[in-house]
């Protein structure tokens, strides 16, 4: 078993605090993704787990052993770097076996493991090549192979796909997920791309400014973000945030009016313990995909500036009457044109509600809430 547990882990460079107390648990076999904007400390956190950065305070456990001060090479972790970091003067086979040779592993074992890893990654025909004679995707495979042969307890990936072109990235994403199913080891993966996070993770850790904003499954983060930052970071295109005001509240629900769509009072259920008073300023969050069509009727009037039509989906970027930016998912076969004004109906059951400080007030959004309301 190789759970990775971080207990109040901190990192400072001089007087600058980069990681400000992170508590985290990655269970054995889990695929955990660290995601966050650049500079949030996600790479630093990964480097602290593998031992390239010292842990200023706190504790790191890998498989029940305290690894906080153990040498990087003895932690049982293997890292795949963004730049692949292959040894340019060695062949693929030498690259992959270097770590084992450093550890004085018997030749037969080395050969067997390299062969096995090469088969998993389908790079057997490349074993005698040098890194400079290979494409980016092939180098990436070698870098992963180098990690596999060490049979680590924990795999660490530092933005491994960001140097690949879009098509290859999608392909490698799927292959990494397959690899994870095949090997079953704990994997920790850093990315700034929320699509990678959503598609690959068992558990997403959203970081900002060296602090954990929320930990949860991709769907948890999508339907029940803990705050406005997570809500805005997860989901693409990002969630719309509309200024609104509380009209009235019952014990469990609140009625909210959005100034741009006054004819429609939103009914939103509240989280336990949420503090809301009538007249209070709040923020309503609606994802682009949760507006109902672009037909006329009650709702938010939006003047369209730009339409991005992807064929299957179209997104319309526009402004409401009050000048708030709004993104709406639109019909791709009959998309609105720029300059048009459309009316977007807001679906209550998909609305999120935040107070002005960004804390979530509403319960988890989505169809479930709709069913609960009906019941």
């Amino acid at each position, binding site marked *: 078993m190789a759970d990775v547990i971080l207990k109040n882990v901190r990192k400072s460079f001089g007087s600058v605090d980069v990681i400000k107390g992170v508590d985290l648990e990655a269970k054995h076999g889990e695929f955990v993704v660290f995601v966050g904007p650049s500079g949030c400390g996600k790479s630093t956190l990964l480097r602290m787990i*593998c*031992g*390239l950065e010292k842990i200023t305070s706190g504790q790191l456990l890998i498989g029940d052993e305290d690894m906080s001060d153990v040498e*990087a*090479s*003895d932690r049982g*972790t*293997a*890292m795949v*770097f*963004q*730049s692949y*970091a*292959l*040894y*340019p*003067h060695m062949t693929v086979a030498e690259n992959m076996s*270097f*770590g084992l040779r*450093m*550890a004085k592993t018997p030749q037969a074992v080395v050969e067997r493991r390299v062969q096995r890893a090469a088969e998993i990654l389908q790079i057997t025909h490349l074993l005698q090549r040098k890194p400079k004679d290979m494409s980016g995707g092939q180098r990436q495979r070698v870098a992963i192979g*180098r990690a596999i042969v*060490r049979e680590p307890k924990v795999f660490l990936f530092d933005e491994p796909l960001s140097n690949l072109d879009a098509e290859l990235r999608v392909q490698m994403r799927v292959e990494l997920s397959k690899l994870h199913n095949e090997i079953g080891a704990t994997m920790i993966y850093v990315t700034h791309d929320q699509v990678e996070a959503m598609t690959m993770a068992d558990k997403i850790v959203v970081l900002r400014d060296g602090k954990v904003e929320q930990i949860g499954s991709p769907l948890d983060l999508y339907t029940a973000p803990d705050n406005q930052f997570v809500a805005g970071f997860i989901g693409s295109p990002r969630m719309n945030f509309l200024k609104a005001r509380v009209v009235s509240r019952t014990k469990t629900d609140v009625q909210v009016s959005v100034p741009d769509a006054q004819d429609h009072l939103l009914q939103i259920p509240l989280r336990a313990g949420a503090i809301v008073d009538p007249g209070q300023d709040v923020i309503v969050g609606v994802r682009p995909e949760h507006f109902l069509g672009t037909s006329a009727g009650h709702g938010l009037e939006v003047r369209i500036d730009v339409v991005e039509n992807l064929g299957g989906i179209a997104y319309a970027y526009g402004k409401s009457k009050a000048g708030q930016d709004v993104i709406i998912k639109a019909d791709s076969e009959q998309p609105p044109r720029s300059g048009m004004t459309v009316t977007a109906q807001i679906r209550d059951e998909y609305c999120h509600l935040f107070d002005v400080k960004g804390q979530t007030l509403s319960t988890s959004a989505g169809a479930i809430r709709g069913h609960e309301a009906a019941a």
Partner: protein
Amino acid sequence: MTDSQTMSDDRPRKTGTFFRRNKLAIMPLVFIAPAFAMFSLFVIWPIIQSVGLSFVEWQGIGPKTWVGLDNYRELLGDQVFWTSLVNNLYWLALFLLAPVMGLFIALFLNQNVFGIRLVKSLFFFPFVVSQIVVGMIFAWFYDPAFGLLATLLKPLGIGIPAILADENWATFGIIAAGLWPQTAYCMILYLTGLNSVNPEVIEAARLDGAKGWRLLVKIVLPQLRAATFIALVVTVIGALRSFDLVAVMTSGGPYNSSNVLAYYMYDNAISRYRMGYASAIATILFLIMDVYIAWFLMRLLRNEKGAR
């Protein structure tokens, strides 16, 4: 689209002048021509001339007398020539310390701490100052009466000879002076080389369990091959053409014990007006250097082929 432009028309197109049609073949020659002309005039032609001069007896002015291989025969029996040749070999062997020391200084200086730029420039300083100045500084440094070396060693009870006046020490004294700027040069070459090493590769090696000496030998050094190659070439050439330090510090003395081929050549040509004899020395020196130049060119050609 007209008929003449369709794909099925496979007649060669005859448009433009001869120059326009062969632009790709001609332009490289045009660009190379000026450099080639200058190189021929100022490098190749003097080499030929000087080899030619080695077969004559000439005082710089006046008539040239053809003597065939006499100059070379004289060289074989010339004790000073052999001393100079052996000294050149000492230079060559000891100068190879420069890349090694340069590498270690570069590794030491290749870190990010406050003020490292200043330290780097201080280490590079001896390469910037003139060799003549280096020679003067070391001559004072070695001075037995007031030199820094004697002053330092006297309280320790170590007496040293007057290094530059001692026939057993003079050459080594000059080589030590020469190593100072040469090490700085190699250091700069290695520092630039280290700059191009991807830090993630070093981190990957650390994760793979390579540390200290093994990390240096297996990961860092192989990536510095280009720098090592250049450092070796400039050091070997530098050792063989050593001249200014000898001229400033000892003028080849005492009793020609610190002479080197380049200085002996100069001495014969300028002080003794023996142009033919000096040219013969120059030719020998040129042949020795050719070994390294050939090695250099072969590697260069091989790398160019490999790059394709």
